[in-house]
């Protein structure tokens, strides 16, 4: 009997804890968004965050996109040739990449790279009192540290995804042309005949949302980390895990909103 009650108490405590965390995150996100619009602005910090999130993620995102496009062409060939629909491969590749795989894979890669780095940096600043020091020097940490990263996330991710789209399609094209023996001209033409602007645009909207999520989870986990090096490590891990799960969940919601009209 007691054991059962104890078990229930544990579950209850865990649920309360989770709810508290969600509340904390909501407040953090709200404060962060308010900090974005309220002056002072820190263009220098935005520039730094853009480099960190965008520029330095370029190689890993490019390679991911390229290989994804290549494997996509190969896989769909296997399937589609079974019912003589090889001509659809070009469309399948370009639609999957722009609508889905570009934003999601880029989001996962960037959260592993830049989101983790953000959590580690802010976490270290927290446990070494640097965040406290900011506020004693007339600087609001949410505005100086968090807002620039949120802005940079929302700008950098669509740019990265635009590049990922191009490289993904190129990867598929190269495989179709050089390995599967497609006529390059026909392949390209059929790639673009079925592509609509909103396929690309909705992918880029997703990317901006994912960029916000990555920066938000990186900052949130870093900002509230405590307990030295171990705490910073835990913050880094949970920044990546939570951003990845949120990206996949929000991706479903956004797909529903953007594509089922």
């Amino acid at each position, binding site marked *: 009997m007691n054991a059962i009650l104890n078990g229930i108490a544990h579950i209850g405590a865990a649920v309360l804890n989770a709810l508290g965390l969600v509340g904390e995150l909501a407040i953090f996100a709200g404060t962060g968004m308010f900090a974005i619009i309220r002056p002072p602005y820190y263009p220098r910090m935005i520039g730094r965050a853009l480099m960190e999130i965008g520029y330095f993620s370029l190689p890993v995102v490019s390679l991911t996109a390229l290989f994804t496009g290549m494997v996509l062409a190969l896989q769909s060939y296997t399937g589609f040739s079974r019912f003589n629909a090889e001509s659809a491969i070009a469309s399948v590749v370009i639609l999957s990449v722009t609508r889905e795989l570009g934003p999601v894979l880029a989001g996962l890669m960037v959260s592993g790279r830049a989101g983790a780095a953000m959590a580690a940096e802010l976490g270290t600043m927290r446990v070494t009192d640097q965040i*406290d020091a900011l506020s*004693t*020097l*007339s*600087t609001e940490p949410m505005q100086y540290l968090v807002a620039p990263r949120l802005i940079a996330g929302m700008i950098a991710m669509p740019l990265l995804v635009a590049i990922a789209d191009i490289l993904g399609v190129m990867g598929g094209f190269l495989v179709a042309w050089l390995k599967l023996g497609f006529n390059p001209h026909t392949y390209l033409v059929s790639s673009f005949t079925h592509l609509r602007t909103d396929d690309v645009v909705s992918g880029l909207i997703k990317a901006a949302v994912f960029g916000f999520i990555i920066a938000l989870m990186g900052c949130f986990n870093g900002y509230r980390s405590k307990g030295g090096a171990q705490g910073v490590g835990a913050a880094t891990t949970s920044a990546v895990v939570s951003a990845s799960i949120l990206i996949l969940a929000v991706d479903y919601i956004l797909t529903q909103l953007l594509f089922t009209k």
Partner: protein
Amino acid sequence: MSIPKIRVRNLKKYFGTKKVLDGVDLDVAPGTSLVVIGGSGSGKSVLIKSILGLVTPDSGVIEIDGVDVLSAPRAQARALREQIGMLFQNGALFDSLPVWENVAFGLLAEKKIARRSARAKAIEVLAQVGLADNVADLSPSELSGGMQKRVALARAIASEPAIMFFDEPTTGLDPIMGAVIDELIVDCVKRLGSTSIAITHDMASAVRIGDTAAMLYDGKITWTGPAAELLTTTNPLVDQFTHGRSEGPIKMALRR
């Protein structure tokens, strides 16, 4: 009698069930220096972080210039606290910025100087803490612990704040540099007419820096008096502490 620059009444802060501050009363008159002594973990850092607004106390009153910052509107509380310059116990230098930007950070944030003159100004302040201009472009991680402390001190005093907090300013410095820093603190506080609170474990330093002294023990201020009396008072707690005796009313918990 003039109103104290800083007045603390019945300040309480618990972490969970642990009573760190359990009714602290404190007065610091304008233009004077208070040194706070007390054992490791007695809550000295928590006390000044509460005044700074970095720790939210559970109850009590903290007045700066006669205004309770805990109940005042946010903007007013912030403006009052903006007069405080703080030297953190571990330095808390921004390791992503070079030394000179650390020192000039507050001045730039308050737009007191232009960016192009900031480096020269920072070098000037660095000279005051005995650092040559060749450290200005280094990163804080390239400095020794003692040098980091001096850079942190330079950052705290650069904007010439009306109130200065020093959390163990001389810990980790050699005795001569410690004395130099003490002198610098006294000099700076007196020159600017600032009010200061310094936390220290170093009795020589306490006597040099402080006008008055207070001992924090068991969550309360158990003794206050002129800093010069620290070494001569008959208060058994202070006597044991300042003379570093292991026998006495203060029992250090070595084992649980």
